[in-house]
């Protein structure tokens, strides 16, 4: 069965510092991978996605992620964090099929200190 692990429940970084959020997945075939962000009390917004091709994908708000098949990882990065990036981040893997069903990781809460 497909699964997603986000090993860090909370991460705190200083404003302006770099960020890396970890995501490991388990999937039998080529995965469809996503990162979503959720601000408190809000729905999920797509940051970026990987289907195929270039393993380094660029997203919105200055985020990028790198797909590493050998490590079953899809880590999210940002070179310089802004206070407005404080939110919860979810990694997800697509289970495929016509329904495009997603399996989410447990999420990582990002705190930004000034």
């Amino acid at each position, binding site marked *: 069965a497909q699964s997603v692990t986000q090993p860090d429940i909370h991460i705190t970084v200083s404003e302006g510092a770099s960020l890396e959020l970890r995501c490991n997945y388990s999937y039998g075939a080529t995965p469809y991978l996503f990162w979503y962000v959720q601000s408190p009390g809000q729905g*999920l917004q797509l940051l970026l996605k990987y*289907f195929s091709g270039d393993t380094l994908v660029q997203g919105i708000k200055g985020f990028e992620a790198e797909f590493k098949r050998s490590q079953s990882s899809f880590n999210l990065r940002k070179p310089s964090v802004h206070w407005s990036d404080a939110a919860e981040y*979810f990694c997800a893997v697509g289970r495929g099929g*016509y329904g*495009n069903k997603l399996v989410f*990781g*447990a*999420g990582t809460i990002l705190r930004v200190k000034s």
Partner: protein
Amino acid sequence: DAMVIQNPRYQVTQFGKPVTLSCSQTLNHNVMYWYQQKSSQAPKLLFHYYDKDFNNEADTPDNFQSRRPNTSFCFLDIRSPGLGDAAMYLCATSRAGVSYNEQFFGPGTRLTVL
């Protein structure tokens, strides 16, 4: 702007009193999903519609039902809400059949059960 709309944003109901949550979309997507997200947890898929075909997840309680009267609208009915059903309910849409498309989420409805 094309979007996914959920009403109401906050819903309070009494233990055992039926409640209906609403989702509408202007994206003309053929797949609609309902997720349950409890506090500090990942979204959990309850069911989805592919056009008019209803697909229930195996572990979704019978207490949860859904209706999709047309392409634009989808409803989540909770027949007898229990305290454990208090959660954020997220509606999402996607366009299946044309490569693998991401899901677009609404802002969610926060359900409180008294």
